[in-house]
């Protein structure tokens, strides 16, 4: 009992620290630097402590100091309650959804089975969908309660866009569930121990569709209609400042991490290296004794998982800084006329392949 509780708390602390403590601040830096390098610029590199600059890594700290000392402003005529609630509704789902994503396999440590997932739900994927829908409320409420035309338009666009793409995203994943026969993400991950059973080989079309829908859900370019800077100032968070603004911003970055985690788990072999099974990994570290081997294998698996996650974060950043924004009608047309039929086709083909 105590051991289980400790284990869960340790896992929660680990995920929380790596997401909120590492990925959220570092992604702000990555976004600046990566966009700069892609556009032949240098990027932010001026924040310094005692003249040490370390390629701009102090900028997240400078940002934090800045936003913490800024005035938290609620505009005149805004709905105070919902205006305050919206950023919470936007940030919380982004943090919570990582609870069902396995970041490692299951190991036997000192006779105690350890599974590296905070909550091993048998409806893991549905849980993610449920919480992804809640984050829509954050955006819509933020847009509506700000008493600002730009915000309202952003919120409306966000609601339309996120509803449309959630349909296609759900249908895309049905193909994945048909192949693996489970909604439990740990099971899906365990099946992908075999390199040729990775989701990218089983569901190549599903992968492209899912990534597209996920980026659209995340409201990042080329699907950043809700915050379209050139049209809507900043869209639904125009009227937000200080920590509330940062909560939207952090929610966006953590959603990138979560989406990368889901893509890794469903399509890119979760915590497995290609052609390396769990047993091979354990026998590789056999010299460290059974417990030591398990710990080392665990470390390798966690590193592999977060390495893959980082790769997908890089990919999504690259996509964000490469593609121009879609027009609103193009977003809708792509969602309903392209992705939805393709997702249905994917289910159809998957069904035929499974039956034959």
């Amino acid at each position, binding site marked *: 009992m105590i051991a289980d509780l400790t284990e869960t708390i340790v896992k929660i602390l680990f995920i929380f620290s790596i997401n909120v403590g590492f990925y959220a601040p570092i992604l702000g830096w990555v976004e600046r630097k990566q966009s700069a390098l892609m556009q032949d*610029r240098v990027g932010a590199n001026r924040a310094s402590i005692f003249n040490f600059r370390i390629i701009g890594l102090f900028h997240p700290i400078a940002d934090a100091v800045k936003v913490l000392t800024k005035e938290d402003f609620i505009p005149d005529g805004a709905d105070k309650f919902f205006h305050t609630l919206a950023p919470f509704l936007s940030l919380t789902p982004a943090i919570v959804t990582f609870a069902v994503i396995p970041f490692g396999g299951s190991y036997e440590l000192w006779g105690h089975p350890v599974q590296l997932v905070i909550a091993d739900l048998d409806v893991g994927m549905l849980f993610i969908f449920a919480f992804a829908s809640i984050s829509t409320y954050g955006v819509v409420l933020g847009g509506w309660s700000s008493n600002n035309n730009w915000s309202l338009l952003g919120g409306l666009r966000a609601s339309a866009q996120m509803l449309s793409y959630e349909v296609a995203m759900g249908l895309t994943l049905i193909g994945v569930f048909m192949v693996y026969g489970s909604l439990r993400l740990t099971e899906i991950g365990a099946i992908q121990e075999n390199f040729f059973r990775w989701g990218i080989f089983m569901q190549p079309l599903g992968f492209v569709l899912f990534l597209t829908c996920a980026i659209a859900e995340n409201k990042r370019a080329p699907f950043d209609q809700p915050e379209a800077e050139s049209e809507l100032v900043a869209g639904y968070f125009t009227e937000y400042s200080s920590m509330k603004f940062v909560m939207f911003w952090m929610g966006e970055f953590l959603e990138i991490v979560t989406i990368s985690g889901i893509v890794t788990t469903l399509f890119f072999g979760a915590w497995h290296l290609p052609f390396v099974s769990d047993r091979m990994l354990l026998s590789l570290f056999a010299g460290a004794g059974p417990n030591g081997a398990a710990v080392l294998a665990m470390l390798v698996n966690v590193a592999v998982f977060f390495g893959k996650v980082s790769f997908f974060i890089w990919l999504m950043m690259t996509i964000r800084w*490469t593609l121009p924004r879609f027009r609103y009608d193009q977003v809708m047309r792509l969602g309903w006329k392209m992705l939805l039929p393709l997702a249905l086709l994917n289910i159809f083909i998957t069904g035929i392949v499974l039956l034959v």
Partner: protein
Amino acid sequence: MTEHQAFKAWVGDLPADKLKPKKVRKDINLTLWERLYIFEVLRGLAITSRHFFGNLAGFVRPPKGRKRKIPTVYYPEERATLPVAYRGRPALVANPDGSERCVACGLCEKICPAFAIAIVGDEREDGSRYPASYTLDLSRCVYCGYCEEVCPKEAIVMSDEYEGLCTTRRDDLLYTKERLLKPAARLAQRIDYVRRIYAKCNY
């Protein structure tokens, strides 16, 4: 000569269709390959990632002896080499003996569109004129370069200085003759350029 004729003389006998502005083509028919978009997306991603990985090498500091691919100038540490046509703070040209070339004719004062120049002329014992005081109010100066163009003595030219013009006190921007004077040797390039560009002869 009317304006139209002047334009004709300027463009010469180019065919009329070449002079028309380029039309925005709204009827471009994309091929099916392009309409699928995903392959064009991949092509775009290839281009941007090529830039990304190419610049990653010179990210921290350029490799020794190699020029950095990113053309950004790290300003306080590095200075850009400015073209000679750059119009920085106006400077009075000083002769090698330290005296100014200016004869206080007042043409620059007259032409200055921002009324930034104030001259008080005087005469020396030998009858040559000189400015007793030459004040340039840099808080008004618009860096148009008219003073340089109009000066018959090549006595005022635009230097390549662009620093030190930011201050919290207005008085600091009132440049007197002593602050404006610069030896002719340091302004030789610009003087030469001015001669060419305004087709000035050597007076």
